[in-house]
């Protein structure tokens, strides 16, 4: 028997609210990981919990036909992203803390030397991420940390796909302009593929 899609569960939850629990089970960890990586353990955990409460309240507004692949993942990450916007100070503090932490190293990893190089640029990277315009940072981090495609980010943020493309392009350009003088990025990496879906 095929398992009901997110859209079907959400639609059913309007009559039977307990059906929303299936959406929680499927996506809680994705939302939690995204929020915690982006804003820190405690606040991220709280934002993950509140994301599902708010999603539940707004479930009648979820449009399965507009959801990429019928999944609620982008919708939920969009709600979490909007909540993170209300924690700008927390996010900046978290970035400051990250910039001061040594990168995880493992002598067994072949890319170890590159990781050592990355340590040098952490403060500049964190500073530039904090300085990005909100819309660019959200779109970029939904791609990098949330692993969403352009179409999914567009759904999450409620903007056209073209806008997402240009926001991510601008964000990457700003980051690369800041990092290139430090020699931390490859020169041959000016083009990229949509990493979300083929």
């Amino acid at each position, binding site marked *: 028997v095929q398992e009901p899609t997110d859209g079907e569960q959400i639609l059913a939850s309007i009559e039977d*609210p*307990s059906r929303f629990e299936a959406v929680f089970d499927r996506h809680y960890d994705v939302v*939690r990981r995204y929020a915690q990586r982006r804003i820190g*353990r405690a606040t991220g955990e709280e934002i993950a919990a509140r994301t599902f409460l708010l999603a*539940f309240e707004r479930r009648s507004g979820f449009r399965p036909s507009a959801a990429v692949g019928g999944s609620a993942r982008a919708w939920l990450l969009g709600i979490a992203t909007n909540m993170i916007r*209300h924690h700008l100070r927390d996010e900046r503090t978290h970035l400051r803390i990250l910039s001061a932490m040594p990168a995880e190293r493992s002598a067994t990893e072949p890319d170890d030397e590159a990781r050592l190089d990355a340590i040098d640029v952490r403060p500049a990277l964190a500073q530039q991420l904090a300085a990005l315009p909100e819309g660019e940072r959200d779109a970029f981090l939904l791609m990098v940390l949330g692993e969403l495609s352009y179409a999914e980010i567009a759904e999450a943020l409620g903007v056209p796909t073209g806008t997402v493309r240009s926001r991510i392009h601008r964000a990457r350009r700003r980051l690369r302009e800041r990092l290139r003088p430090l020699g931390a990025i*490859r020169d041959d*990496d000016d083009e990229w593929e949509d990493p979300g879906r083929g």
Partner: protein
Amino acid sequence: MTTMSGRTPAVDDFELVRSLYGEAPPSDPVARARALRALRRAATPRWPRRNALAAAAIALVALAAAITLSLVRTSGNDAVDQLRRLSGIAGGQEGELAVGGRPVVYELSQASEIRSGFDVETGEGFFVEARTRNETWRSSDGSVFRISEVLSVRFPSDAARAAWASAVASGDGSMPQVGELDEVNIPAGRIPFPDLAELPLEPDDLLQRLRTGWWPEPLGGDEETLRAIAELLARGDATSELREALFEAGSTLEDIELLGDRTDPLNREGVAIGLGPADRRVVLVVDPDTSFLLSLEERSGELTTWRAYQAWATVDSPGERPADDLS
């Protein structure tokens, strides 16, 4: 191109950013269970449906109450006058609500909370009402420490009582039990407006700030704004100037109503001011002589929850209680 350390770069910006953020912490089962419990509370159906006869009886009582209320209810202008009068009283007081001059503000309140669960036998949702005694300590850095003790548990039906007993026996920690203590530490910056001094004192600006700057989402309607005003009026670190501005701001809310004299859930007499449709009405009961907020009552569907504010003081550290018994 070479790095500062002379090595050949070999990472792209995506990899750098992922490296900066690192991996997410492993899942915390307690936090997950807490999030799921909160969702279940929100998702649990309203009180069990009553039969048609009971519903008709309730409708008649409601009609009678509405007629009575309409007789005692005065106009919106009266609400405006009353709030302005309270604003004047608040402005005439000195300093913060919690007096004593020590660094940590202590607040004492009681509350009625609805907790919900699922009957393990039938799978049906049920509610119980927990009456709690709440002590809150606000430090100057914006952090908050709170201890809540369950004073009593009330049940809307025998079925709810049985379901609660079954849940407690099965070890469901979300079900309230008399004497249960809950401690919460909220780090600095995690409550709305940790520094009240940042709030504007001009009523229109204050109202705008409340509507747009409340955490985590902007406020949805005037009843939410009135609730936010109440929560700030109840803060021990609210100054007389802020309380004056809050009453004044409340008087500008459209459809604000004076509901007349009323006793609060702790049987203290006050004047009631309310706003919102019947199924999500917010009511403040205020001491007409001192302007102190006695209680905040919220109607949500068929349920009413409340918080009654009892005392404010200052102490030297979180967890320390005032020397005098304030309850």
